[in-house]
């Protein structure tokens, strides 16, 4: 097998550039997907339109990204921060997840309680704790398994706490949001594997996870119906098959080069969630296979940046962190595109950086910022003497 030593790092600006490109495409598509016959794109007040809100979210996200990229450099260098911040984040995320299940605080959204209401500041601001949980769990696992004195092969000191943390997060998220729970479980399992946990420990958790997911699956009947319907959309085109069929119709309407930006028809009431979970379908309708392929290639480029960052990381913690964050974004993107192209049942997972929404965007921006910080630190002289 090829021996992989620490390689020359990627430029942090390249990571940020790809993210900004994807976010920009997302903003344009959100604007197009929410075009309405009744009002202009930015009226009556810019922040009340989906496009205006997404633009504001993008600016905030960029700020978070740059701030994380800048502050991450000293924070990652500090052993005490490395050890404590992930734990604090994790506890916070678990607390918020639990709070979202409290009826008074929850903001019912599409029949699932996955939003936490943070009050109103003239505009409604909701927050999805599950988005923070993604970041927190990845950071916590990287910290648990990647510290200098950690032993990933140990059951009691590494595997058990990791498994408990994953179980807690996946369980809390999964109660209302099956797709994100599956995503979390998948990314967490990958981190455990890459960190070097024993294979039979992993098989144990995979078995437990599979059992847990099965329970979640049968707990909410609509999930089963969706799964049953997803390939047989012709059989029930107006019921459970509606969403997959409309998604395919939208993608197929685009052809190779698309109908042209803004010219899509499916977004006008045919395709539900056209600006959030199914924005990729609208993109394919208006920009064609060409546009879809461009976005997929940008995600691949992002993965390539992640690989380079991971390989050049200064510490094991940073390596696991870089891997976990990149992998999380990559499989979430894959999951979303798979749903849009009806390769898997509808899960309610947005396309990172493209779908409308604040919480998810801020999380991904923080992740991108962390990647940039890791890449930046890899370029520095070996000041703190940590090598591999």
């Amino acid at each position: 097998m090829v021996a992989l030593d620490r390689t020359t790092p990627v430029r942090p600006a390249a990571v940020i550039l790809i993210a900004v490109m994807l976010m920009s495409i997302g903003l344009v598509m959100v604007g197009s997907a929410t075009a309405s016959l009744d009002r202009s794109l930015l009226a009556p007040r810019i922040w009340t339109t989906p496009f205006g809100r997404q633009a504001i979210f993008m600016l905030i996200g960029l700020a978070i990204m740059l701030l994380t990229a800048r502050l991450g450099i000293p924070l990652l260098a500090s052993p005490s921060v490395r050890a404590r911040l992930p734990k604090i984040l994790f506890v916070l995320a678990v607390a918020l997840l639990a709070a979202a299940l409290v009826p008074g605080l929850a903001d019912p959204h599409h029949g699932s309680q996955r939003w936490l209401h943070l009050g109103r500041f003239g505009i409604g601001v909701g927050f999805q704790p599950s988005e923070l949980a993604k970041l927190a769990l990845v950071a916590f696992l990287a910290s648990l398994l990647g510290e200098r004195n950690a032993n990933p092969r140990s059951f009691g000191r590494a595997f058990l706490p990791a498994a408990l943390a994953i179980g807690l997060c996946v369980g809390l998220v999964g109660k209302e949001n099956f797709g994100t729970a599956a995503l979390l479980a998948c990314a967490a399992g990958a981190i455990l594997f890459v960190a070097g946990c024993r294979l039979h420990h992993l098989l144990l958790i995979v078995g437990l996870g599979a059992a847990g997911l099965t329970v979640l699956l049968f707990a909410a009947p609509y999930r089963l119906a969706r799964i049953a319907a997803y390939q047989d959309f012709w059989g029930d085109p107006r019921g459970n098959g509606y969403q997959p069929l409309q998604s395919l119709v939208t993608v197929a309407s685009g052809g190779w080069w698309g109908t042209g930006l803004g010219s899509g028809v499916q977004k006008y009431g045919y395709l539900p969630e056209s600006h959030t979970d199914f924005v990729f379908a609208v993109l394919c309708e208006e920009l064609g296979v060409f546009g879809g392929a461009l976005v997929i290639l940008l995600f691949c480029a992002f993965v390539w940046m992640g690989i380079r960052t991971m390989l050049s990381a200064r510490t094991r913690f940073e390596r696991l962190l870089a891997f976990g964050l990149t992998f999380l974004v990559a499989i979430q993107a894959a999951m979303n595109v798979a749903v849009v192209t009806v390769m898997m049942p509808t899960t309610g997972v947005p396309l990172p950086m493209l779908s409308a929404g604040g919480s998810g965007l801020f999380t991904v921006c923080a992740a991108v910022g962390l990647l940039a910080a890791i890449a930046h630190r890899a370029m520095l002289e070996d000041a703190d003497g940590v090598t591999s």
Partner: protein
Amino acid sequence: MSSPAASIDQFQRRSGVVLLLCSAVVLLGLGGRLVYINTTLRDRLLNYAERQQQGGATMPARRGIILDARGRVLAATEQRPDVFVDPSRVEGDVDEFANRLSPRVNIPAANIAEKIRRRPQSRFVVIASGVDDITAEAVRAMHDPAVNLDERSVRTYPLGESIAHVLGWVGRDGAGLEGIEAAFDSHLRGKDGWRGTIHDARRRALRSSDEEMIPPKDGGHVVLTIDAEIQRIAEQALAESVNRVEAESGIAIVMSPQTGEILAMACYPTFDPNDPGSVPTDVRRNRAVTDPVEPGSTFKPFIVCGALDGSHISATEQFDCHMGVRMIGSRTIKDVKPHGMMDVKGIITHSSNIGMSMIADRMGNPALHNTIRRFGFGTKTGIECPGEADGRVYPLKKWSKLSTASVGMGYEVLVSPLQLINGFATIINDGVMLRPRIVKRLLGPGGEAVGDSESPQIVGRVVSSRIAHYVTEELLVSVVENGSGKGAKLEHYSVLGKTGTTKLISRNGKIYEPDAYLGTFVGAAPVERPALVAMVMIRRPNHRLAYYGSAVAAPAVGEILGQALPYLGVPPDKDQVAAATP
């Protein structure tokens, strides 16, 4: 190199790269799925997309207008949209919304709010239908997505109840249902166009699809021979006569004998073609062409024409009028006043039934039958109005012994009012029958002439010019001067004409109803070259007031001729000084 830490680092790098590359491969594989969807699945999906997205809207053709002979608009089409509200798009409070809409449509806010609340699930609550331009503009100016206009064209009849029976009316769908509207529906209607559209999930049009566009062809226009002013004169005179004698109904027709053009055709009572449903069907029927009647004495001049033309009698011959009573078999024929020996002029002037029965005897049934048929009775005139009656002339072999006298007096035949006046017009027009016409010409959508010429259509000569002149200038003038038609006399014009009073057959068609009469007068003026022939029929007058045609109908004809002739600029032919000092 082979320290445990180093090997773990190696494993982490290697497995991390493998997993991340796997995720990239999955992403690229999904790119392949995009290609698959856009090739293999494409046709069926696009077919489905088309079915759900494509619709269309008719582009309505504009219905042509109907004009009178002088270009006055009798029927036109206006855009009168409906105002409707989509309750699901009303923002905020319904009452507040209703308050804003209320002054623009001039409907109380409470009514609007109630209409909206009653059907909250509906997407289409009509608040006001057929609104005018100003209201439509006021509603548009609201710029409220909850309020919309549904464009609809409405047929309007500017003269209201005038000419209603001739014009007919159109249904809600814009199709002509009666009268000229029905007879020329395909000409007036035009052809609707079609515009294919792409619509959203709520079926609101997003854009039109260019390949599916058939422009509408607007309808053509119809110019009638009717003169709205003469029509007004006739309607007024008719209404006054009907009301004066408390009659059930009446009919008036005015024709130009030289052209066959109908200048006025009125039935009373009339109705509003904007709201035909408000009256019974009997009232809406154009009885001037659809309902045949027994003509009675007005029929006598046709028989006399036939008798003179066939040399069955001579103008100077005297007939014994039996002093008012003649027995034919078991049947008694009476005259209103007893007369002794009279020539044909006297018989017509005094409308002697006994004299007519003698003339009919002289002619014999075949000549009688031939005469009636030559004047067009029993055959449609071919006027453009729908539902024209043939009338009824029994075939010769069905005639009985009594038929000879009956037909001679204008019974046992059924003729439509139009056939009757057209027969008179024939005598007046030197004995040449023309096809009566009510449509002057057809115009295309742009006003260009369509179809054949406007010249009179000659049916044929019925009697010789000499006899026609004798009947009009001697016999029919005498009716007005000395006989039953005195009521139609005019100060400035010499008038000719013939009265008629018939008993009406009961509704079951078996017996003559007691005290039910039809009073008729047909007149023309001026005598030298009559410019107009006019007829008035008064049905079921109150018999205690009056019922003879001379009393109920002749004055109305005089009224019509006296007003219409000056309107047409026909110079008076009577010596005014002489007329002023009788």
